[in-house]
């Protein structure tokens, strides 16, 4: 169990994270969402032990993070800024991490056999990292994250630069974490890729604070989206907002707009549906629509 309690982090005098509390159980895949500069990467850095915590604590299975990290290669971290030794080859880079993680020759071969062909990396294996394409570097980043089969995986924008096939492969891997009692925290702007049952929970951040932490069940039961014309939206918004609902009209750049409605209970959701009448209702709101309900860029 990963426990983040009242964590605060400042750089110089600027508070980047403020009183963050988050518990993640084994088998959970959590999505972190929020606009740029909101502190998502900083939060992942803190969990990975790369940055120090100013206030609060992080524990893993009740062991303070520092003690845990001293003994275990328990955290794999896919970092957004592709941190590689550019003068080395793809193979050198992987071998360094294999050796640091204590892989035997057989384990190395097994790993490579499993992943290199799947990710279509054979042609690049001997190439220098500085000559690799963006997509290949992302794949290398992914591989170095999972070396050592860490219990906790942190992903910062894992899908950027991946083609469709590779995205499916990564999603498949993340699903596997759920069934094998691992923990994953994914920060991504591609919220649609985290939907469809991949993540158990969505955590929305704004100005260094968690504004909402929603389980899949809560999203299912308490949120809905109504699609209507701009004229209709004004009337409907007035009816819905301020009574028992939190609602927001979202411009999706099309003739129609969406109204995302947050209802405190299932019953209120039914009432809201009645108010919507014959308008098109999406029972399970897209997480990117819910994101826009809470988060302003």
């Amino acid at each position, binding site marked *: 169990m990963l426990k983040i309690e009242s964590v605060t982090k400042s750089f110089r005098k600027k508070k980047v994270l403020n009183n963050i509390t988050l518990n993640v159980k084994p088998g959970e895949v959590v999505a972190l969402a929020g606009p740029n500069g909101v502190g998502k*990467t900083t939060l992942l850095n803190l969990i990975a032990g790369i940055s120090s915590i100013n206030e609060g604590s992080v524990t893993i299975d009740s062991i303070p993070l520092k003690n845990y990290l001293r003994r275990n290669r328990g955290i794999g971290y896919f970092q957004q800024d592709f941190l590689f030794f550019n003068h080395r080859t793809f193979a050198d880079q992987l071998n360094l991490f294999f050796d640091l993680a204590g892989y035997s020759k057989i384990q190395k071969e097994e790993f490579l056999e499993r992943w290199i062909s799947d990710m279509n990396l054979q042609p690049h294996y001997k190439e220098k990292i500085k000559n690799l394409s963006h997509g290949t570097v992302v794949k290398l980043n992914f591989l170095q994250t999972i070396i050592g089969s860490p219990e906790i995986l942190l992903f910062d924008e894992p899908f950027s630069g991946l083609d469709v096939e590779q995205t499916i492969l990564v999603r498949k891997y993340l699903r596997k974490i759920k069934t094998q009692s691992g923990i994953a925290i994914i920060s991504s702007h591609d919220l649609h890729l985290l939907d469809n049952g991949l993540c158990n929970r969505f955590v929305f951040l704004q100005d260094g604070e968690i504004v909402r932490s929603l389980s899949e069940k809560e999203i299912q039961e308490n949120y809905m989206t109504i699609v209507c014309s701009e004229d209709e939206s004004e009337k409907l918004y007035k009816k819905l907002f301020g009574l028992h609902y939190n609602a927001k009209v979202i411009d999706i750049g099309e003739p129609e707009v969406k109204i995302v409605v947050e209802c405190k209970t299932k019953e209120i959701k039914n009432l809201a549906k009645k108010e919507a009448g014959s308008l098109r209702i999406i029972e399970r709101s897209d997480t990117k629509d819910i994101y826009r309900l809470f988060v302003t860029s």
Partner: protein
Amino acid sequence: MSNVNMNIETGKKSFWRSLKVFTRYEVFDLLKSKRFLLIVIVYITLLAIFNLLYWALTEKNMEIRHDPFAGKGSLDTIYRENIVNVFGQTRGLLNHVFSIDAVTIIYTYLMLTFSPLFLLLYIFPSISDEVQNKTTKVLSLYTTRLSVYVSKFIAILITTLPLLLLGSVITFLLNTSRLLPVDADVQMNYFWKIQVFVTLYLTMFIAMCMMASAAGRTTYGSLGIGIVLLLFFSIIDNFYPYASPFAYKDLVFYPGEQIITYFPLVCAGFTGIFFFAGFLMYKFREFK
């Protein structure tokens, strides 16, 4: 697309394994680097120039004295004169602690004078490069920063000291065979004392340059800090002798028995302080 088959079993971190692995990678990286090649070229060139200059100077003095077949005693006088003229050092150098032929001593002295700058040019990116490129963020997930720092220190020692000591060996062999037909065993005994002296002296500066590298956020920042540190200690050397690591190179000319006994302790002290300060700066380096 194959099935994803992942066994989650947490790998244990091991300081010694990381140290061994990372040192090996660092040594190969350094040996393949352009700055290593550059330092070898510059170093060998200077080695040749220093030796030739000193030979030329000695030959000239011998000619002036019309004593081309002089024995050790006469040569000692010439060496001493050279040392007085070239380095402004007034003390004799052939004594019971470091009695060895003068050319090797001169070479050693010059090497001790110039090496800190060479070392800085070689070492300044070692830590700052990791910080600038943020590769430390990845390494921290596999190993401790202590292990990274120690590995880099060892890798630098492995790649630099043999090179510098090799220079001494070449100088020694070149000059003793030509100029001083004295007892080889005695020569070798003193020769190795000088090598220990040089090793300890340069280790101090390797630790100092590592500290400069850890102090900067960028590679050029570290280079700047390193130059400032070298200048600072050069100035200190003039006002507070022996409060600066530079002061200890003069022991080649003033090798009092007592100072030599304490020299390893002084070196260990300076090395420890520089190493620890550099490590702390690296350990507490924050990444956004």
